[in-house]
Each structure stands twice: as structure tokens, then as C-alpha cells.
């Protein structure tokens, strides 16, 4: 039973990271119906930016006391800002021109952007995994036989807080309203005086900033990163977004945690599970897309003709 609860905790913290990435997928898909394939790489970029900031601050191990708060805030906000700007640039360069092109055209440029980002990161930090400083000291909490690390709590709390903030932003602010309007009917929104370009850019800014936060957290969590991380994590987060119901913020969260749990339990309870984890997760992806493309919380949308 302890093993079960231990994997539950592990799965939830894994899921927190996926959920943060999934929010970006779901926002962008909701507004321009594009699978932003480069999003996973923006997340990896978040880890790389965080690492650069930490090195700039001279942090190479655990940080204690009051400094910890500053280091965490500074690094995370820095990574979020840089990733946000990257996301906006990607939209401007590779997607905006193709907004009225056939659906598959921007998907192909998105894959292209993903490869470009991966190559850039490979050139930046080399093709092998890189160590990431621990930053957060690790007193673990023991509940029965289950060990909960401080950073696991951080991941879960951060994911929930960010989602709540995003939900408030989308439903309580004017820009949020503009986003919802644009998602519903771009042309009508434009006729009502909404600046479509700014709204879409804002969506990319926020989505990518959340990926930046996920990047920082995953760096601290795994204490290592790799230029190719974003491919797998991105696919899993996309699975999460679809599982929850694409375009739905709470759904992305739910999907993220579910995928995290699937991964943790598959690793533990399937014989030689670690080898088959990805097969299981990708099978979930295929099954969800095929049998319930509207996801758990999404509504079935007719294809726009």
C-alpha cells in the first residue's frame, strides 16, 4: 500500500509539470486551433534559461533561508519572461502568416520550429544531459511509509496556483474576455473591435510563460536536463490537454495529473514497466484521440467547415 501512495505522490508531482505545459497547448489550440508543436521545446528552453540565470546568480547547489525565496522567484520569473517572449516571436515568425492557410500548413511550420529550437539548444549546451543545481533543500516529509519531498509539494502547489490564476485571468479580465471571444469566432471578435493580433500574441505569451515555469520546476525536480527533453514531455502534455478536453483550462490540469499518474503507476506495476512507460502513455494518446477526441471535460465540437 505504501508503494501505491508513494507512486500517487510521484505521479501527482510529475503530473503537475505536465499540467503546466498542457495549459499552453490548450490555450493556443483553443484560440487558433493549432497544435503548437514547438511548445514542448519552449518548456525545455525554460529549463535552459533557468540554468543560465542560476549560473549568473552564482547558484550551484542548495540555497537556504531568505535567499531561497529570492533565488526561486527571480529564476522562475526570468525564465517565464524569456520563454514568453520566445513564444510570441515564434507566433510572429512562423504562424501568423499562415493563419488563413490550410490547417496542416501551420502544423508543419510548428514542427519545423520545434526542430530549430532543439538544434539551437543542442548547439548551446551540447548533445548530452546537463546537471541542474538542486536549489531547494530537500527535507522530506514522512507520512507513514510515504516520503514526500519539498519540491514535490512545490510542483503540485505551483501548478494549482498557476491554473487558478489563469482561470481568473481568462474569466475576470478584459483581455481574458477578448481571448474567449477570439476563440469563439475570430471574425466576429474583430468586428467588435478586438485586436486579434495582440490577443493571440498574449495567448502565446502566457502559454509560453507557463511552460517557462514548468521548465524551471522540472530542472529543480530532476536536477538534470537535455535538449531533447521537450519532445517527449511535449507529447505527454499534449496528451494531457486532449485527455482533459482541449481548449479547457481545468481539463488541462486534470489531464496533466492523470497522465502523471498513468506514467508513475505504469512504471511501478507493469513488469519491466520503465521500458514500456512511453508505449503506455502514447497508447493513451492514441486511444483518447480515437475514441474521445473531445476529452473528459470538453464538449464535442463540430469541425468548422
Amino acid at each position: 500500500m505504501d508503494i501505491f501512495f508513494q507512486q500517487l505522490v510521484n505521479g501527482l508531482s510529475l503530473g503537475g509539470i505536465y499540467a503546466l505545459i498542457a495549459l499552453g497547448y490548450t490555450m493556443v489550440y483553443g484560440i487558433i486551433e493549432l497544435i503548437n508543436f514547438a511548445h514542448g521545446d519552449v518548456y525545455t528552453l525554460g529549463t535552459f534559461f533557468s540554468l543560465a540565470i542560476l549560473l549568473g546568480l552564482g547558484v550551484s547547489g542548495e540555497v537556504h533561508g531568505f535567499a531561497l525565496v529570492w533565488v526561486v522567484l527571480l529564476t522562475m520569473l526570468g525564465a517565464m519572461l524569456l520563454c514568453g517572449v520566445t513564444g510570441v516571436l515564434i507566433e510572429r515568425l512562423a504562424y501568423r502568416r499562415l493563419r488563413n492557410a490550410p490547417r496542416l500548413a501551420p502544423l508543419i511550420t510548428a514542427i519545423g520550429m520545434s526542430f530549430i529550437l532543439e538544434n539551437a539548444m543542442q548547439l548551446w549546451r551540447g548533445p548530452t544531459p546537463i546537471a541542474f543545481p538542486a536549489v531547494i533543500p530537500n527535507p522530506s516529509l514522512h507520512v507513514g511509509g510515504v516520503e514526500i519531498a519539498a519540491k514535490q509539494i512545490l510542483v503540485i502547489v505551483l501548478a494549482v496556483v498557476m491554473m487558478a490564476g489563469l482561470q481568473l485571468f481568462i474569466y475576470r479580465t478584459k483581455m481574458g474576455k477578448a481571448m474567449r471571444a477570439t476563440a469563439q469566432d475570430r471574425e466576429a471578435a474583430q468586428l467588435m473591435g478586438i485586436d486579434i493580433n495582440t490577443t493571440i500574441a498574449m495567448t502565446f505569451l502566457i502559454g509560453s510563460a507557463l511552460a517557462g515555469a514548468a521548465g524551471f520546476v522540472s530542472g529543480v525536480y530532476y536536477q538534470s536536463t537535455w535538449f531533447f527533453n521537450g519532445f517527449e514531455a511535449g507529447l505527454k502534455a499534449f496528451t494531457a490537454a486532449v485527455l482533459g478536453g482541449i481548449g479547457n483550462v481545468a481539463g488541462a490540469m486534470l489531464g496533466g495529473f492523470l497522465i502523471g499518474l498513468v506514467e508513475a503507476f505504469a512504471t511501478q506495476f507493469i513488469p519491466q514497466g520503465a521500458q514500456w512507460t512511453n508505449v503506455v502513455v502514447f497508447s493513451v494518446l492514441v486511444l483518447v484521440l480515437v475514441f474521445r477526441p473531445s476529452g473528459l471535460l470538453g464538449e464535442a465540437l463540430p469541425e468548422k467547415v
Partner: protein
Amino acid sequence: MQAGRYSTYALLALVLIFPLLDRNNSHIDFLVNAGAFILLALGLNIVVGFAGLLDLGYAAFFAIGSYSYAMLASAQFGLHVPFWVMLFFAASIAALFGILLGAPTLRLRGDYLAIVTLGFGEIVPQTFLNLGQWTNGPNGIGSLDRPSAPGLLLGAPDWKLHLFGLNDATPYYYVTLALIALGVLLASNLQNSRLGRAWMAIREDELAARHVGINTTVTKLSAFALGASFSGLAGVVYSAKLNLVSPDEFQFSVSILVLSMLVLGGMGNIWGVIVGSFLLSFVNGFLLPQSTNLAHAVGLNLDFTNYRFFLYGAILVGMMLFRPEGLIPSRQRRAELRVALADAGVAAQEQAEYEGPPRT
């Protein structure tokens, strides 16, 4: 026109006698690999170019073709099915998997279909990797049978000519060439057939296609099956020459490489696809390593082969933005890709007319 035809003949003749002119085995070896990728590109072109189904996991079928050969024509299980039989057999197995993996995607719209195929593209090589007891896991399967001349097929092992030496790629060159010729013949005939027109109808408007009585299920599945069969052929030739099959040859980047070839050359156009494929293979397998050598020779510490992903990415982004119809476009495809932009123009014009002349 005349000059064009003569230069085509000259090019064909050059391709035919090339191994006799250039005795450098590494060059021929490179050309065989490029040829295998032309086969892959021709196959993917049926799925993506003709039928408009974006398959992001095409490397899975390449893997299935290659592993079929590795398992059935090596000491792995003691089965030594002849190469020539395997060509046919692997193409059929790949086609079967094309149907199996295509079937779940039938109801999906374009972008979800792409992601599901991507999922299969990840699952298949991972499965080959994990089934270590049959596939030797990460080590792959080595010492594959080399093809023998058809004498063996006729039941007389003594006639076996040792044409396919380990260090001579020339026989593979001609086999690949023959397969490409077959592929071009098949693809161009299909394109102008009833089935080919049905593919194009689906690509342009699936709903409309269904309403004019096209059986979209059969039409889509046949695209998946025929497309996959090409990669079965490519897998057999490629792995027989390499004499080894290992799971890391079939990563996502291979699927994207083949897609880049299509995008570069021109989706839907057979000659465009061949040119795009060859160009990219040439840059990849020849230009980048050679310029790296050159850079090293003049004392520059540059490795151009590290820029491969950048190249694929730049091709995908650049071409889709500025020349979505590819270098050598198919006329129909260009019209389709341009129509959306034209529509936007018309809409703007209509709106301008609707607003009418300025009021006084």
C-alpha cells in the same frame, strides 16, 4: 521542349551507368541510401501528397519493413527467406500494418490524425527495442543475409552468383534503381487512376468527396497501405545493404526528414518529391560532412553535421511560409494551397464593396 527531352535522356543514361564511371564505393553506397529515401519519399507522397493525410510516423513502416527482413532473413530465427521473396513479403507486411495503424485514424480530422500517426511512430520502434528476446533490443539484428542472384530462386544453389559482396554497393544500386522505377511507374499510374482522383477529392474536401459517392474508408486505407508498402521495400534494401537493423534508425527525425523531402520538392508531384529527396540526401550525406572536413582542413573547428535539425526545421518553416507548393510544384496542389490566400483577398474585396463608396 526538344532540349528538355534530350537532357532527360542524358540524365537517365548517366544514372544507369554511374557505377561504371565512378568506382568509389562510398559514393555508390551513398547513392543507395539516397535511393532508399527516394522510395520512402515516394511512399509518403501517396499518403501526404496524394491523399492529404499528414502521417508523422512514417518511419514506423520503414522499421517494420527493415525488421521483417532482419527477422526472416538472418540467423536470428534460422529462417533464410530469399531477398527477392522478402521484397514482396516485407512490402505486404508493411501494407498490412498501414491498414492496421491507419484504421483507427479514419474518423479523425487532419491535425489529430497527424498526432495519432506520430504516436504510432513512437510506439513501433520502442516495441522493437523492448522485445529484446526477438530483436536483441538496443543491439539490433546483425549479419543479415545478403541477396543472392536469382539462380538460387530457381532452385539451384550452385548457380548462385556472388554478386552482392559485402564491400560492393553496386548491385544494391541497381536493385534500388529498379525499385524506384517500379515505384514511379506505380505512383504515376495510381495518380491518374480512379483511386488517385478519389485521393485528391478527399484531400480537397472529404465531406464533398463522400457525398459524390467515394468510399472514404477504402480510399484512405488504400493510401495508407500503398504508402507503407514502399517503405517496406526501402526497409529491405536499406537493411540488407547495411547488414544491420537497430531500433535507433527509426526515430521521429526520420519521419520528419522524409516529410521535409516532400515539402522541399513539392507534395503531390512525383518528380518534385524525387528531386527534393535527392537534394536533401545530398546535403545531409555529402555536403555537410564534406564541408565539415573542409572546415577542419583549414583549421576551423566547425561541425556542420550538427546543424541537421536546423536544416530540416528551416526547410519546413521556410517552404511553408514562402513556397508551400515546393520547388517543383504539382499544378493542382499549388492551386489548392494558394486558394486560401486568394479567398482572404476576395473576402477583403467583398467587404470593401459592401462598405460602398464614401458617403458625402
